[in-house]
């Protein structure tokens, strides 16, 4: 079998297909080698956190020892191995990376990626000897798993968004910011990326960005937790110089395209390659879109060419000269027109703007030339480039060469670092026996891997070497080392350690300019262990917790194995003096004082701060109702007394300057008492009473200490009443049929005029139907409102009478069923485990003769009887707690029926709903 090597090229037995492959491989590799061979600044190994931090030199050396995974070759203490950075996983390298890149990188890692920690392991070979080794290693890596590597035309529209995201989400604080043409501006101070279009295909890069830890388990490339679209946009940006063959480039626009594609009300949606002209060449575009095509038209015989166009609007240019123009209009249908151009043989730049708008949009473009009859332009005459761009063809692995590569992989010691590949390299000199004057750290040539270390780096490592196995770091050193290795200081300032590079601070942006620098720059880590509760620190570091939604930068996840230890260490390292906190009972009076202080007539905290998810007018500063969840009380007291101590640029006012009494006379104006009262009030969290002046503009109805109601169209019809309860369980009652229809948990509801819909989770929907009815037989369907029973349910004796609210604004629904007046109350209560559920009591006042009927307590698809008093209905558990029994009926909607016999006077039926 022929393979893509120079040797194989000389074989005569190659099939046409393999010849094509060889040709592609030669061209592709040449292109990449040319790109890679371009002069680039020779950099020493880059561990960006090192330069920015103020660690002691030997500690910097230790970071380098761990980052370069020295212990992989030189067996030593297990703890050093555990602390050291794992090399990228290579099992899937063939799907992720361009084969030519692999070959090039193996041959010359430092030339290919200046600054990489990957050593040059072929240093003892001559350039001529390197090539076959690098090639065989490439075959070996591609033999590990079937490759799905592919290349796609970049979406230049997505790339424009991607550029913004790359610079704002945080990528550009470890990697270099780039200029408008994509050139890295500060490569030596950044984790090197170089020309990624020769390394990755689009799908491979997206897969890597979605799960970076799968390839790089040590978390140095963290997971930014971006959505798929943002990842794709960044990938398109980083790969915007990818070149693949195609017929035409297109850009799709949408909006009021009849105003022209440069209009204010038109936005570019996407771009890519198209097979030809016309809407049919893309996935069906929506109405009110425009497509701009660009490419080259090949003319075989010179002369006058005619172009016949039917469209709502279009512009056709050849070599920059206008051939046809038809102004689009949304108020008419397509028009037909023709234009002419005298064209010499050869390639001509072609541009077509097509407007898919107006009545019954339709498109056709035909060309007629000296040697071509009138017909749509044959795609074979079109190309995105006058260059011959080779298509990517799957790499063909030669088993023999791959086997040679496997041996190299073993002998060169690659497997010591890349230990996910099932190859074992024998260990090198043990740690204890090392002589740092010889070998990798000597700086001189020799039969060892060559690391691109600067003299200073070698010096640091020399200081660390002897202590690296058991460095005996104290907590502060341990924290500093982790923050440096993971480059946390690229985004966060920490006193005594470092902070963001001044030249990159401007890259931080936010959505709340009113908040100043705090609204754009990630918070400092100085004293963070004394500020945040361990719970919240863990939430942020390990589970993606986030409250500063206004920051454009994302707090990434580094993986629990890599940062889990910080939660405990930061708390030990960061200590603040104890604040003077008055001993104040958290009784209602104190909470009321806190409520008054937070509200509009007090300190008006909610003028800037969110409260329980509700946003004030122009600001959206941190949610005060979540402060006790995040903050240590001691810090809260210290901070409120002197905010500028912690954030010199904060816009948060000092309400008690120098501890003097504040202007609000609650609790005598005493600073400590007032702060403690605010803390006491906020400690109720989501149950904290809403402060005065809280905006009601939000579409979300947030329940605090009292129930909230919303009415109107919703999931159960037009007369729904949604009730949100403080225990964060909610229900929807249909005032049309007087029936319980929905139960859910968590967030309550969103409203818009005349409408509401449940938010939250664990939604249970019960079928429509009145609550009480006398069934003639048990086979009878339970009555419910249909389209044509217009007088229902009044014709069944029902009349809705509204509701009364109790002190916590929980409604008692009131309705009439014949002579029976019903008061229907749902109470939100908690069981012993703290789980909230509803206790429902129906107080039935029979004002007439004794009467018997059924109450339908629940209905659903899977209804089961546990006892006379306990039932399950899908995920709902129902218990009758009054002295009544229920029965179960099967059917499309099985139901739980409670037979009731009411004497004159009162009867109480009590039930519990748990789910």
């Amino acid at each position, binding site marked *: 079998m022929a393979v893509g090597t120079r040797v194989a090229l000389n074989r005569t037995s190659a099939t046409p297909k393999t010849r094509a492959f060889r040709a592609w491989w030669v061209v592709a590799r040449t292109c990449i080698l040319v790109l890679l061979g371009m002069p680039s600044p020779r950099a020493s190994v880059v561990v960006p956190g090192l330069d920015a931090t103020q660690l002691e030199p030997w500690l910097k050396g230790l970071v380098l020892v761990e980052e370069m995974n020295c212990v992989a070759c030189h067996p030593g203490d297990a703890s050093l191995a555990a602390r050291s950075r794992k090399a990228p996983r290579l099992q899937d390298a063939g799907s992720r990376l361009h084969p030519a890149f692999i070959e090039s990188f193996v041959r010359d890692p430092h030339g290919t990626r200046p600054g990489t920690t990957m050593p040059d392991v072929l240093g003892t070979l001559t350039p001529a000897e390197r090539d076959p080794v690098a090639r065989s290693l490439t075959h070996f890596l591609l033999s590990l798993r079937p490759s799905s590597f592919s290349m796609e035309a970049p979406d230049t529209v997505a790339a424009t968004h991607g550029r913004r995201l790359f610079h704002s989400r945080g990528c550009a604080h470890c990697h270099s910011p780039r200029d408008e043409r994509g050139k890295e501006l500060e490569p030596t101070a950044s984790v090197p990326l170089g020309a990624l279009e020769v390394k990755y295909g689009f799908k491979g890069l997206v897969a890597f960005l979605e799960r970076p830890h799968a390839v790089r388990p040590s978390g140095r490339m963290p997971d930014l937790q971006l959505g798929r679209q943002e990842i794709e946009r960044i990938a398109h940006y980083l790969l915007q110089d990818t070149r693949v063959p195609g017929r035409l480039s297109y850009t799709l626009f949408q909006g009021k395209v009849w105003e022209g594609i440069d209009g204010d009300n038109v936005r570019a949606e996407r771009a890519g390659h198209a097979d030809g002209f016309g809407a049919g060449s893309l996935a069906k575009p929506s109405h009110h879109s425009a497509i701009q095509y660009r490419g080259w038209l090949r003319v075989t015989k010179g002369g006058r060419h005619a172009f016949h166009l039917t469209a709502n609007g279009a512009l056709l240019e050849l070599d920059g000269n206008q051939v046809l123009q038809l102004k689009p209009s949304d108020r008419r249908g397509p028009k037909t027109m023709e234009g002419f151009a005298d064209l010499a043989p050869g390639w001509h730049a072609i541009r077509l703007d097509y407007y898919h708008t107006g009545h019954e949009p339709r498109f056709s473009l035909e060309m007629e030339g000296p040697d071509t009859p009138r017909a749509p332009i044959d795609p074979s005459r079109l190309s995105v480039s006058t260059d011959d761009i080779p298509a990517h063809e799957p790499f063909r692995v030669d088993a023999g060469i791959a086997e040679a590569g496997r041996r190299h992989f073993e002998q060169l010691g690659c497997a010591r670092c890349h230990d996910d590949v099932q190859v074992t390299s024998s260990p090198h000199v043990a740690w204890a026996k090392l002589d740092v004057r010889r070998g990798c750290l000597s700086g001189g040539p020799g039969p060892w891997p060559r690391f691109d270390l600067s003299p200073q780096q070698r010096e640091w490592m020399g200081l660390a070497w002897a202590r690296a196995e058991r460095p005996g770091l104290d907590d502060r050193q341990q924290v500093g080392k982790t923050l440096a290795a993971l480059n946390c200081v690229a985004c966060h300032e920490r006193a005594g350690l470092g902070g963001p590079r001044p030249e990159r601070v401007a890259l931080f942006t936010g959505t709340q300019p009113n908040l100043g620098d705090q609204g754009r720059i990630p918070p400092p880590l100085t004293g963070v262990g004394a500020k945040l509760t361990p719970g919240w620190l863990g939430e942020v570091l390990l589970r993606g917790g986030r409250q500063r939604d206004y920051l454009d930068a994302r707090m990434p996840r580094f993986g629990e194995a890599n940062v889990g230890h910080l939660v405990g260490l930061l708390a030990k390292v960061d200590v603040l003096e104890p604040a003077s906190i008055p001993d104040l009972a958290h009784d209602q009076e104190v909470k009321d004082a806190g409520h008054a202080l937070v509200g509009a007539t007090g300190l008006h905290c909610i003028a800037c701060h969110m409260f329980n998810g509700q946003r*004030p*007018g122009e600001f959206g500063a941190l949610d005060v109702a979540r402060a006790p969840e995040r903050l240590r009380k001691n810090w809260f007291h210290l901070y409120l007394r002197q905010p500028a101590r912690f954030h010199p640029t904060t816009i948060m006012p000092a309400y008690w300057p120098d501890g003097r009494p504040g202007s609000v006379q609650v609790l005598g104006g005493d600073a400590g008492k007032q702060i403690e009262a605010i803390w006491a009030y906020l400690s109720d969290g989501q149950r904290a009473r809403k402060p005065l*002046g*809280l*905006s*009601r*503009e939000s579409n979300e109805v947030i329940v605090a200490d009292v129930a*909230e*109601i*919303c*009415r*109107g*169209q*919703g*999931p159960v*019809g*037009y*007369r729904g*009443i949604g009730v949100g309860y403080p225990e964060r369980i909610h229900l929807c009652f249909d*005032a*049309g049929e007087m029936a319980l229809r929905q139960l859910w948990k968590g967030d309550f509801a969103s*409203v*818009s*005029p*005349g*409408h509401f*819909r449940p938010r939250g989770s664990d939604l249970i929907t019960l079928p429509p139907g009145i609550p009480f009815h006398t069934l003639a037989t048990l086979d009878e369907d339970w009555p419910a409102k249909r*389209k044509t029973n*217009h*007088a229902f349910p*009044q014709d069944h004796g029902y*009349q*809705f*009478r*509204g*509701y*009364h*609210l*109790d*002190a916590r*604004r929980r*409604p008692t629904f*009131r309705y009439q069923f014949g002579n029976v007046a019903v008061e229907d109350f749902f109470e939100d209560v908690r069981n012993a485990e703290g789980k909230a559920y509803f206790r429902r009591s129906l107080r039935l006042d029979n004002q007439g003769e004794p009467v018997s009927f059924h109450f339908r307590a629940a209905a659903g698809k899977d209804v089961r009887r546990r006892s006379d008093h306990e039932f399950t209905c899908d995920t709902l558990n129902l218990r009758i707690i009054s002295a009544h029994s229920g029965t179960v009926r099967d059917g499309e909607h099985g139901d739980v029926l409670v037979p009731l016999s009411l004497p004159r006077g009162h009867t109480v039926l009590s039930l519990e709903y748990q789910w």
Partner: protein
Amino acid sequence: MVTARHIVVPLLLALASASPVRSEDDLGAMWGTAEAEARYYPIVTIPIPPGVPLRPGGLEVIPDGRLAVGTRRGDIYFVKGAFDTPPRPEYHLFATGQDEIFSLSWRDGALTATTWGEVTRISDADGDGVADRYEALTSNWGYAEGHEFAFGSKHDPEGNIWVALGLSGSYESHNLFRGWAVKVTPQGRMVPVCSGLRSPGGVGTNAAGAMFVMESQGPWNGCCSLKPLQEGAFLGHPASYNWYPFAPHVPAPAVEPRSDSRMAIERRRVKELVPPAVRFPYIKMGRSISGFRTDTTGGKFGPFRNQIFLGDYALSIILRATTERVNGVWQGACYPFREGLATGIMNVEFTPKGQLVAGGFTTTSQWPVRGTEPFALQRIDWNGVTPFEIEEVSIRRDGFLVRFTLPVDPQVAAQPGSYTITSCTHVYHAGYGSPEVDHVAHRVSRAVPAEDGLSVRLYLDQIIPDHIHDFDLSKVRSRDGKPLLHGKAYYTVNEVPLE
């Protein structure tokens, strides 16, 4: 789930009496009189603090002098200081959690709110200033489709609330009593009153206490009109005939109206058909007229005492109307009053100080509104200066009596040529709206000013029943030579007095 349809369907379709229009549609020329109007009736904006989503639907003044505002969000605010000059409003949230509120009325210690699906009596039993009793008086009409609006009146002397129920989707009647007006008693009994409505926008009385509804232009309605709510009446749109079996005490008409006819002709066929009392020529006099109130301030609001003032949603204007009963049938005239309000007007209310409060909102859908504020609460104050205006046009056997707010120049007023009177009518048909048809130019044979100059008796060659008589009096001058602030009036003739 909120379905896409619910989002797309503009909630105010029924209010906007126009056919579906796009925002770039012309809202018609303005009267161009705002600057002159402001010299007599300045507009005062009542500030709304940030965070208060005050999209007013229902307005009422409660006994302690505060303004009650029922909102689109389903809240009721009590506003103190709204009538001060300058306004110093303090907003108190009295009730929450209702469906969209279209009307409010106070009686016996409670506010009665009319929403899409219910008439609700709302009160504060424990006296903490926040409502805790929401008593449904009735919800016995069908409500299961978009556009099924429900506008309520103030309490009538018996304590009833009259509710006008818009058609399903504003075209058909799929749910119980859509297209009817009903009366809701203080005991919560719902009494069907009359059929034939299309898409009402407000319910209220004239000075004589007769109940009227504001109807929207559309099928069977050539333009917006003020229609009297009379028991057993049929008000013109036959889609709601299907509910007579559910209202046994209301006799069903024997026949349905024929399309492509005239109101006067069909009145002879359909005995129950009651014609609109005041028709408002489309665009010229409103496009989607909404809530209205009668000026019972005893002159505090200027010279138009006992007249009806109406808000318009699309044009952000206030109109004026007068009514009289001729041969047992209500009819009357409409007049321009004030333009240039800040938003789409949903409702109006008179204050104890004799100011007219107007409030409303715009929507984000394609329904055009001339006012640009997303929502607003404004006040029109009379500054005590009397404008020279047509006060009222009323009919006589052989012509009209036109009263003015100030004495006219007798010489100009005595010339028949000072008056241009034309008339036309609409096609009465199932199609949407109507062109103005059957145009007639009337000849004024004699014009006789009264001695005090405050009225002119006009004698016409003919008065045509079923026609809107268009009065152009722009040549008339006041005694000191000034032109009228508004020179137009439109009188709808249903009947000509026998005497």
